[in-house]
């Protein structure tokens, strides 16, 4: 096996293959998915009530303390406005559930115990519970502002022992899987099938290059792309964890397994249409552990039935939950065993007639 020939083919794959649709998809889809999750979970899908406030006294130097108090609440999305038209426009188009117009000198009249005018604009499609929550919030903050004593103390009792599981955390495994599997599996598989369809694979192996070297080169491109995308996604989401070296090692191992799966598919499948069909069929099996993370009501042991669980779980444990080597050694051992097994299958396939 010649390292020079493998590197030459890898260079060609990166130079020409990077313009292939599959390569572009392997790069773009995880980034796009990451963006969509950030957008949806950070704002919209979180389902928080959205409140906008226009303080008419601000321009006249009689700024109310209420907007700052409301902005500090984490249970709402808050925006401040400088003119009524913009506030009204945003309520009208549903960017806000409620808009509040505070009259000039509102704080002073409130503190004097006088009746204080407050204009409320409500988006017609806002949920009733959001209207109720925002009204309660404004009333409570006004009471605090004017120093009215709260009629009760509130003591919170938490039942059960399950920690909160935000949507961002639930969707993260899917994101990691797409970053590792798209580049690692699809790119080498599609590259091999394309070579077969264009009849360039036989031509390639009539040169001094062996079929095994072709597989190593294509697999290395897939694995390196998968590793790069995995790292980008983890860094982009601030999830490299407290032991970045360990996390990187786990992504590298996962990328290797992913590339081996891609090579097996690429060797066994004859044309691109069949490849897509097989991947669609296998997709549910590959992504099943991520689906188990997505829906906590599914028993966790089900995820362990799928080999890709051992690729995903250690990465999530180190990156999100601060796990160390001792916590993940068992899962990593299984991942290593599966990777070796897949490697043996690839080695056996490398002896076949490439075309």
């Amino acid at each position, binding site marked *: 096996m010649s390292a020079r020939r493998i590197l030459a083919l890898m260079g060609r794959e990166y130079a020409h293959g990077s*313009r*292939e*649709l599959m390569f572009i998809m392997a790069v773009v889809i995880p980034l*796009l998915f990451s963006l969509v999750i950030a957008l949806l979970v950070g704002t*919209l899908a979180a389902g*928080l009530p959205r409140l906008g406030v226009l303080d008419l006294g601000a321009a006249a130097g009689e700024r109310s303390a209420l907007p700052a108090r409301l902005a500090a*609440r*984490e*249970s709402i999305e808050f925006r401040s406005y400088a003119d009524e038209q913009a506030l*009204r426009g*945003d309520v*009208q188009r*549903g*960017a806000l559930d409620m808009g509040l117009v505070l009259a000039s000198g509102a704080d002073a009249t409130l503190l004097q*115990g*006088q*009746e*204080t005018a*407050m*204009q*409320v*604009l*409500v*988006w*017609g*499609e806002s949920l*009733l*519970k959001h*209207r*109720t*929550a925002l009204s*309660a919030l404004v*009333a*409570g903050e*006004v*009471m605090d502002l004017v120093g*009215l*004593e*709260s*009629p*009760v*103390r*509130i*003591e*919170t*009792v*938490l*039942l*059960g*022992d*399950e*920690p*909160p*599981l*935000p949507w961002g955390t639930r969707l993260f495994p899917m994101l990691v899987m797409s970053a590792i599997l798209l580049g690692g599996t699809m790119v080498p598989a599609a590259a091999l099938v394309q070579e077969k369809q264009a009849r360039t694979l036989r031509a390639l192996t009539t040169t001094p290059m062996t079929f095994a070297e072709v597989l190593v080169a294509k697999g290395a491109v897939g694995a390196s792309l998968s590793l790069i995308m995995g790292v980008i996604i983890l860094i982009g989401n601030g999830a490299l964890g407290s032991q970045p070296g360990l996390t990187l090692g786990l992504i590298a191992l996962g990328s290797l397994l992913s590339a081996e799966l891609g090579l097996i598919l690429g060797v066994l499948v004859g044309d691109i*249409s*069949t490849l*897509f*069909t097989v991947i*669609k069929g296998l997709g549910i099996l590959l992504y099943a552990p991520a689906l188990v993370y997505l829906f906590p009501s599914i028993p966790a042991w089900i995820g362990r039935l799928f080999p890709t669980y051992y690729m995903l779980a250690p990465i999530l444990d180190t990156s999100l939950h601060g796990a160390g080597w001792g916590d993940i050694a068992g899962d990593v051992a299984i991942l290593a065993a599966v990777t070796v097994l897949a490697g043996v299958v690839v080695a056996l396939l490398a002896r076949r007639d490439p075309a």
Partner: protein
Amino acid sequence: MIRWHTILPLVQKDLRLYFGNRFYAFITALSLAAVIIAYALMPDTVDETFRLAMYAPGVPSSVLAAMEAEEEGLEIVRAGTEQDLSALVLAEEAVAGLAVPPSLGDPAAEPTITLYLLSSTETEMRDMLRVLTRGIAITLSGAAPDLAVSSEILGADRGGNQIPTRDRMRPLFAVLVVMLEVLGTASLLTEEIESGTIRAILTTPLSTRELYVAKGATGLILSFTQGAIVMACVGGLSHQPLLMLLTLAEAALLVTAVGFLISASTRDMLSTMGVGMVALILLSIPPFGVLFPGLISGWGRALPSHYVASAVHELANLGGGWAQVRAPLAILLGYDIVLGGLGILVTQRRFQ
């Protein structure tokens, strides 16, 4: 003058090729089935209220009923004991439980409301429920601040009558299913360009315009049929079906125009697919504005699929009619004409 007898064989050939490819046929059927199944599995109601369990031995039922009637976003489930209260929360039959002491309203007694929450309740929701609990306490104790609130509802008031998320997704389904054919339509022409048959075809009496019409008809049939099937299955044709079909037809025309413009301006199938993917992503943005109101501001109107999404939303979800959709449909037709004309022009310049 278009000679239909020369166009029809070309359309028939393209349709035969499309459905002759088992992979394309399979994927097409699979994607339509996936959309329809996803719609069927999604909830058809909107959870609009906070369902709170309440153990309040000192508060008359009439007071709680009055509060429930006043605050439409609240739904109160009464618990007989504090144990029942926590059981209701643990069984997730209520989002929170409030144990209200009989001494509420007597500041000298320093009353305490115990708020029961599941430990898995997210931080923001915990804050929200504390705010709500305080609001309830303020209401029950009559300690509310003196505010003269004037309220104005902007837009149709859908409080208690919200559009379920799956119905809000109808414009997304329509746009995605129809616009996905941008790739198919573009590939129809690119295949002829790559294999060199386009020059052979154009040396026959078939004109560029007729070639465009033939390929356009194939793209139109494929995208329109798929859009109509999906809309029929997700209830999009139950109100003003003719207007909905007209909207889908205009959307299919748009797809054909964009597909040909891409095909005529790119070198090979790979670049056609690359540019097609970008176009597809851009065209898919506007329906998200229906799904998440307020997400997309004015710039979304520059994308022609905004008018498809807007018309589908109006017809399928808001009960609109011709008066509401004539403007978006007219603008969409304008886009169809301009982009279609550009497509013919670019194809003509390239091959003649």
